[in-house]
């Protein structure tokens, strides 16, 4: 072998070594022997002013931090925004210091003291290097006991608050989360209400002082303090320093019941969005409910960082999203699950289908897999232990359990309790609490996305002020003229009185959950105001009777005599021309505007919306009626469309009606007869 060839061979061998990266690693390593978890020590004490203090020593760095939790918050304020503004204004001046003085002292030490408000409480947080603790405590006491709530500072904060309100409207995540809470609790419930320019304008210094007097009280509050000190010394020091923060009379914690909005899809139009923020919202249970933990685990199976189904399916399988978001709240009184993801516009519907089928539907049918349960448990329990690296974690847990009335020793039980939740518990929790049919889907996105949503049910469209987006233009007609035109279109006032009996018979086709049920219907109206109405779907039959004063409903489940509002609405229904006569029945009509070729009017009783009516803007015939109906599954939107009006004895009557609800659809075709038969009074009363 000559020298060149030798070199070549060496070069080849060398280059192979250089390329080959096959270093040996072996199998996934086993863990070492696990270290025993030691629950960190803490001490509880009550100061002379009633403040309960939890003390945790942490000597890693020369610093300290504390949190004071004062029950109250948005949930308990007597005027919207009072709690929030009290928190914002309390640092803006004391009897001896201006806002600038306060910030200068704190900034000058690199210390932090801040007050923030949330749904169920107000929190005061402070931290500093240990050597500055006296200055920090002095400032805390001054702020808590001598605030002046200066009007000129309030005015400045108001300007900023209004700008903040505006800027929040640009954030799809905030819009989606706020709308979710509004759907769950009702538009103005304290857990869901959002500050507006009006609420900000309405707040006065007196409102803020009242909130301060009622809720900034040591004897309702707790403090957690963590740092590089000796427990007994710090308790003594706090007792002395905080002595001037005095006890007060406690306000009872009472929160109004939620008033959930009609079930369906809530869509907020945000022009120019390149992604849709999709959220699923369901109401769950209070923190101390036995099911709370099961729902928590279910919520982790659905959306727990990398281990949850949202990440695995929506991100890693379909690439619809970058980052799923949300989870189960941990409030004291009312909790909810809100989760979802921001996805590109064209897969908004695919995302909903995937969450319905691959995530919730599958969990409902099959429950989580064994491996899924194991991963989630190992992850969550592991996280729990890891979090103790920060002594602040224990502090916040203690305070949170204490506030929610759960014994603090239960913190130690958490891993055990979490581990006990079974796959079946998760399946049950999904079925009972996270079923989309019992909750809401919220989407914030470009208006073009709306049509993708319609296949999933009723879509309620809102604007970024959380007001229904009507899409109405001016109708240039008032209610009186509208009713007059409608009456004329039906044949005129005289014709509508010119009958003794109107009889309608119809063929019904009802579809629900993919099944069709055929049936028949019959309606009889007399000039004397009596009514008979039958719907017979073979498997289900219902008769409504009204004799002019009393009404009944007879169905497979028995006979019910109608009372109150039900009776009133039956009397209204007994009038075949009820909308033309709405005013006579005690309702008032307001024209809201024009939508396409329909004039939209609201029929109200006092201020209460009863039904929304859509009239054709040329023929003035009634084309659509929308109403909300209370059901055991919450409030549902019912839409009835009328069409194919025919002339019957000088009266125009619709021969087709289509009813749409989130649960079922029903189409009916009618034939009418006028004065063809007479009916005895017994037809309008139940058989004796």
């Amino acid at each position, binding site marked *: 072998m000559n020298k060149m060839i030798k070199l070549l061979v060496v070069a080849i061998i060398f280059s192979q070594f250089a390329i080959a990266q096959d270093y040996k*690693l072996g199998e996934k390593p086993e863990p070492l022997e696990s270290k025993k978890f030691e629950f960190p020590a803490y001490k509880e004490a009550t100061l002379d002013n009633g403040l309960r203090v939890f003390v945790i020593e942490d000597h890693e760095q020369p610093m300290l931090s504390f949190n004071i939790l004062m029950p109250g918050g948005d949930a308990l304020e007597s005027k919207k925004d009072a709690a929030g503004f009290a928190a914002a204004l309390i640092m803006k001046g004391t009897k001896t210091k201006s806002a600038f003085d306060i910030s200068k002292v704190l900034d000058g030490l690199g210390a932090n003291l801040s007050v923030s408000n949330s749904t169920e409480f107000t929190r005061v947080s402070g931290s500093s290097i240990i050597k500055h603790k006296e200055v920090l405590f002095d400032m805390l006491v001054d702020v808590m006991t001598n605030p002046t709530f200066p009007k000129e500072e309030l005015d400045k904060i108001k300007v900023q608050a209004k700008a903040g309100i505006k800027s929040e409207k640009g954030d799809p995540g905030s819009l989606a989360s706020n709308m979710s809470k509004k759907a769950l609790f009702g538009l103005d419930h304290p857990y869901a209400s959002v500050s507006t320019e009006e609420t900000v304008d309405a707040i006065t210094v007196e409102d803020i002082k009242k909130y301060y007097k009622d809720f900034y009280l040591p004897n309702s509050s707790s403090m957690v303090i963590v740092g590089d000190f000796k427990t007994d010394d710090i308790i003594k020091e706090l007792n002395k320093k905080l002595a001037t923060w005095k006890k007060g009379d406690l306000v009872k914690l009472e929160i109004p019941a939620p008033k959930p909005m009609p079930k369906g899809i809530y869509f907020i139009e945000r022009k120019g969005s390149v992604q849709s923020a999709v959220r699923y919202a369901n109401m769950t249970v209070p923190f101390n409910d036995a099911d709370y933990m099961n729902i928590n685990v279910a919520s982790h199976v659905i959306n727990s960082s990398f281990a949850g189904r949202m990440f695995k399916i929506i991100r890693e399988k379909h690439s619809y999203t970058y980052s799923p978001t949300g989870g189960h709240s941990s409030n004291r009184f009312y909790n909810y699950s809100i989760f979802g993801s921001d996805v590109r516009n064209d897969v908004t519907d695919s995302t909903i289908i995937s969450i319905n089928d691959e995530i919730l539907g599958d969990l409902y049918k099959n429950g989580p897999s064994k491996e899924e349960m194991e991963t989630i448990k190992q992850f969550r329990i592991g996280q729990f232990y890891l979090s103790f690296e920060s002594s602040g974690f224990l502090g916040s847990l203690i305070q949170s359990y204490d506030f929610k009335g759960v014994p603090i020793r239960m913190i130690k039980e958490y891993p055990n309790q979490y581990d006990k939740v079974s796959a079946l518990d998760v399946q049950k929790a999904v079925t009972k609490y996270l079923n989309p049919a019992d909750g809401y889907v919220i989407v914030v996105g470009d208006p073009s996305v709306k049509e993708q949503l319609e296949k999933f049910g009723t879509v309620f469209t809102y604007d970024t002020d959380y007001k229904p987006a009507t899409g109405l233009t001016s109708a240039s007609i008032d209610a009186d003229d509208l009713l007059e035109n409608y009456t004329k279109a039906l044949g005129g006032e005289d014709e509508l009185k010119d009958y003794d009996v109107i009889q309608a018979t119809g063929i019904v086709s009802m579809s629900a959950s993919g099944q069709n049920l055929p049936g028949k219907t019959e309606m009889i109206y007399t000039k004397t105001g009596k009514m008979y109405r039958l719907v017979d779907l073979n498997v289900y039959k219902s008769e409504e009777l009204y004799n002019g004063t009393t009404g009944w409903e007879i169905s497979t489940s028995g006979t019910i005599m109608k009372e109150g509002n039900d009776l009133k609405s039956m009397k209204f229904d007994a009038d075949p021309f009820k909308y033309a006569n709405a005013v006579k029945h005690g309702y008032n009509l307001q024209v809201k505007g024009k939508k396409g070729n329909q004039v939209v009017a609201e029929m109200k009783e006092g201020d209460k919306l009863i039904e929304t009516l859509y009239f054709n803007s040329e023929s003035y015939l009634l084309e659509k009626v929308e109403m909300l109906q209370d059901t055991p599954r919450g409030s549902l939107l019912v839409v009835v469309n009328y069409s194919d009006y025919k002339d019957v004895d000088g009266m125009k009557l619709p021969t087709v009606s289509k009813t749409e609800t989130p649960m079922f659809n029903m189409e009916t075709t009618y034939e009418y007869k006028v004065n063809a038969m007479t009916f005895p009074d017994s037809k309008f009363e139940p058989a004796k």
Partner: protein
Amino acid sequence: MTKILSISALLVFLSAVGLFAQANEIKFEQETLDNGLVVIYNLDRSAPVVSTVVHYKVGSKDENPEKTGFAHFFEHLMFESTAEIPRSSIDKYINQAGGTLNAHTSMDETVYKFTVPANQIKLPLWIEASRMRKLNVQSEGVETQRGVVKEERNVRVDNQPYGDLIERMAKKLWPGSGYEWPTIGYHEHLNKATIEDFQSFYNEFYQPNNACLVISGDFNIDEAKNYVKEYFGSIPKGKEIKRTTQNFSDLKEKVDVIVEDEKAQLPGIFEGFRGPKLGEDDYYAMSLLSSIMASGESSRLYQSLVNEKQLAVASQMIPFSLQYSGALIFVNIPNSAENVEATKNALNEELSKVVKNGVTQEELTKAKNIVEASSVMSNKNTLSKAMSIARYWAYYGEPGMINTEIDKYLEVSLDDIKRVAKKYLDTDKKIILTYMPVTAEK
């Protein structure tokens, strides 16, 4: 007046007595393997936890300008599969071990992070070793992550108010350099990227001699060294990386652009100046100046623009220092569209003031106190310590700076502050981006 005097007096007293109590020292041990991998061990037995950080010296500045977004895309691919690890398993392994994981990419660095219970120390080391040179760069993973990264771009840039700010700013601040394009990359480049592109990027930058591994937490140091040797020791050394020299010509003109933003509800004014790079002397003076200008409610910008003149809801100065250059970005959010001009004027006024008069001793002391407090409070958990140590290694070649950098801040004088204010802010060669909301009715 007496009140303010007494506070000033207190601050002067504190600085005069030299009470800058240092944070407790962070101890560590460093070794370099034969293949060039630097390994740093930091013991912290305050909790049974271990964090690992692998810091690769590769960021978007190292990319081919025709193929942007690779560094960040790679961060995603590194969670796919390796010779030892099947797809979608890294997160599963770590989660099942009760740990957490994450990663980030910037213009200069790509960093991978794990935190696990102390007895699981081997797992993150094994994963990091496997994906350092044995990543499967194959189509299934690439296609999945391509979709995810594009959605990430949508979330972070295209669907946010002022979302393309950094992109626009960087293009004007550092034209012709690797800092010119956004780390997340452009859609068209993400679409075009091929498997071969990814492979060659991987082979160039993911090498032991381009990385540093930091292990922080509760472990036995001799055992840890053995694990490191076992997993990383036989990885061959990579070729020397030929990096493009970064050139920064001076800004030639003032750029003043109005951007119409459909997603913004309030206007946003962003003024960018060139600033010092990481670690140079000016950097420390400039950081303190930023704190004086914008840290806390007693800061100059807050007092003037937010409190007294009530023009803006926020007024910030952000020092944005990179390995080879830097920027100072002033962020102002006026409280209404009417106040845009007045906000710009008020900012200019504050800048002129500080250029002309510098700052007071009281302000400088305050800024130093803030740095001191934050250095004490930030070195609390294992992950943040590990990340800091890695960063000091990457940019200064000296991990021990985690303990000593505070001295650099404390040495800054009033003259230094005045000098950097003049040097960087006394110019009209700046980038002004004014984002104006577009009303929906338009």
